[in-house]
């Protein structure tokens, strides 16, 4: 295909051609970044938590009048819950993965360190990883006799008498690798505040409650503290997926019966909890898809409109070419090539723009660098859209009969 006549025609429609190139460039740049952001969100939404999500339900209660003994209250609740048919395991916990509000601690490898090495989610609760189904890959779980009542621990911390505090923990593999890269974390120690803690077990995975950042989402540990019943703790119950609704209902009834002086503040399956955590990401992904569709549609319609005009304007020229021996295929290819050229200019410009937008987003929205793979995605999309959009008008052009050449318009 000879490009020179096309280019010389376009030179006569410079403004219009540039507008179309600009439109394609903008669309290409936004689409590249939007597709990338969708991928980013989807990846985040598929984050693993390391627990048996479909088998878990959560119940949280708040006392109307504080219990005289919160520890006895919790022990009795746990016993009551274990009696419910279909319940496989129960634990009291201060948080669940992806719950949002969280409890975290700064971890230091050396007590003299000025800044913590990392911040990790701190889970408190006996039998917790077993109930949640967090798999142990090395060492052991925490033993019941290692757990201490929270108020004793907090008092000891306040007075600085930390000698008798529980000095063991179970951490995730991700946290171990970050603290001691390439080494076995088992038996190693770190500091939480002034207290040295020894790693006795390693979990395959356990996401933290505030897993907003993928890089630090799997830094979690379990500490042997027993908080007793208060409104910030909740019961996590393991059962079979098909029994969840029934168990949830029975659990709430049993807990209310054990102590009527309280209100249920949360009762949900773990799946509901997870869905809520990613609600905004899902909405944003939806919006991004909408924007991509709208942009491509508007651009495609713009190309159709413009091509139709050009075809109408060039009827005589087309007629002359046909009269001089150009086939219908020649005419069709002419318009297709013209569009391909414009799209290519637009795409090249769009790539530069896409890179610029990505730099801006990296600066202001903590988005990673746009991987090179997304550039051809945008390019292919725009080429395809352009060719499809121009097909109709180009076909119409190819049907212009040669006899038009002999007539005045």
């Amino acid at each position: 295909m000879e490009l020179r006549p096309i280019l010389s025609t376009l030179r006569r429609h410079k403004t219009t051609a540039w507008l179309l190139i600009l439109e394609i460039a903008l669309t290409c740049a936004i689409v590249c970044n939007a597709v990338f952001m969708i991928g980013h969100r989807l990846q985040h939404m598929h984050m693993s938590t390391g627990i048996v999500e479909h088998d878990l339900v959560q119940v949280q209660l708040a006392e109307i009048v504080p219990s005289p003994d919160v520890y006895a209250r919790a022990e009795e609740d746990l016993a009551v819950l274990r009696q419910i048919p279909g319940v496989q395991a129960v634990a009291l916990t201060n948080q669940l993965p992806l719950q949002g509000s969280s409890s975290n601690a700064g971890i230091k490898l050396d007590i003299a360190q000025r800044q913590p090495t990392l911040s990790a989610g701190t889970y408190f609760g006996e039998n917790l990883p077993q109930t949640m189904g967090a798999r142990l890959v090395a060492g052991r779980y925490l033993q019941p006799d290692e757990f201490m009542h929270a108020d004793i621990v907090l008092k000891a911390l306040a007075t600085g008498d930390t000698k008798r505090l529980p000095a063991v923990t179970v951490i995730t593999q991700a946290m171990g690798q970050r603290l001691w890269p390439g080494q076995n974390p088992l038996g190693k120690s770190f500091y939480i505040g002034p207290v040295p803690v020894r790693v006795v077990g390693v979990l395959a995975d356990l996401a933290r409650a505030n897993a907003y950042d993928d890089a630090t989402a799997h830094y979690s540990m379990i500490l042997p503290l027993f908080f007793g019943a208060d409104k910030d703790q909740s019961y996590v119950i393991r059962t079979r997926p098909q029994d969840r609704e029934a168990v949830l209902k029975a659990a709430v009834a049993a807990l209310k019966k054990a102590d009527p002086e309280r209100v249920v503040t949360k009762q949900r399956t773990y799946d509901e909890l997870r869905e809520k955590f990613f609600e905004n990401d899902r909405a944003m992904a939806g919006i991004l898809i909408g924007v991509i569709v709208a942009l491509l549609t508007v651009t495609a319609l713009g190309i159709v409109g413009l091509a139709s005009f050009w075809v109408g304007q060039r009827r005589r020229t087309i007629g002359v070419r046909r009269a001089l021996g150009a086939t219908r295929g020649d005419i069709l290819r002419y318009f297709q090539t013209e569009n391909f050229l414009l799209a290519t200019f637009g795409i090249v410009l769009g790539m530069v723009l896409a890179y610029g937008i990505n730099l801006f987003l990296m600066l202001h929205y903590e988005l990673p660098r746009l991987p090179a793979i997304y550039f051809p995605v945008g390019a292919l999309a725009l080429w395809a859209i352009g060719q499809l959009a121009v097909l109709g008008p180009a076909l119409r052009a190819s049907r212009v009969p040669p006899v038009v050449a002999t007539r005045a318009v």
Partner: protein
Amino acid sequence: MFGYYLDLALHSLKRNKALTALMVLAIALGIGASMTTLTVLHVLSGDPLPGRSGTLYYPQVDPRDNGGLLPGKEPPEQLTYIDGLNLLHAKRADRQALMTGGAVPIQPDSAALDPFYVEARYTTADFFPMFGTRFRYGQGWNAADDEAKAREVVINSELNERLFGGANSVGRTLRIGDTTFRIAGVLDDWAPSPHFYDLNTGSYGYAEQVFMPLLTALDLHMDHNGSTDCWGNGAGGAGHIYPAASCVWMQFWVQLDTPAKAADYKEFLIHYSEQQKALGRFVKAPNVRLRNVMQWLSYEMVVPDDVRLQTGLAFGFLLVCLVNTVGLMLAKFLRGAGELGVRRALGASKRALFAQLLVESGVVGLVGGIGGLLLALLGLWVVRHRPSDYAALAHLDPTMLFTTFLLAVGASLLAGLLPAWRACQIAPALQLKSN
């Protein structure tokens, strides 16, 4: 003349119905999307207390040891209980209030109502006059009540509706946990948004239903809600166990009526930090901040990133729609160049042609703008029905309505100017000849 141009424009637009519809739709979609997102952005970055926010300040001091959990040079975002009390009792500002968030169990007298938990604010007396809360009945408590740990509360209109059917409940009793309180006042609908005085409990669409004297609440071990940051051997506590001395969990607000007073107060904070360092409580050199409400909100980046991103996307989309319309309009005008040539040859001036073409593009812009406004209303309706915490706030106020109108007119003029100018550059003779 205008009527004639309008007639010509409508005639010309009717000739290419599909194309006209496409141009109008593109502008409408672009404006609709940008106005929806811009309105949300505008609402979310608004001033929570117009007229007052300029004189309200949030003092921050830095009591951390060198190896603080919180990285960076900024002081912690809240105060320790001790610093809060010290600054409160210093009374160096025109007004000052120390506060934190919580939740309290309400035990209704009526047997028909089950007990329930509501969000609460534990605060000192100046909260009400300082923030200019509107009262429906009664008033707040005073500083003497604070010190006496009085069993008094202020409730909001929602709770008053629920418990007393909206009647004047001042002087009546309210059972919270196992303690009986006297209701001192009932707030009118008052819920500043963003919830600037404590962003830890949620920034938007959050309203406490019970306001309780801070010392009373701590005395009764009411539950604490909100963020706690600790360092050293501090532990955050849980439920009825309060955070340790080396934890920040209190918010402190002051009213300083003149910039000079604000400057003095900052000096006072530095002086206070030096004093505490001399006493051995503070380790670092004085590290203080004194931001007013809007500075505080901007420092805390209270507007969600996603909302700003959506606004950017919408304007990108609008730009594409505009470029699209400009291109189509230009092609259309140039296609009709023959007709324009005839009019030029018959004596119409360039200016007259320009005006005529501008009317044509103006019609497209105006119709698109109206469509955009309707789409924005629809868009805001959709936003209101989404589960985000700011959903209920998404309404078009007069400012944004005016902005929409300006944007529509501006966009249509932009879309019309270039094509109209380009098209009336035609030499009349040339056009006539080619036909």
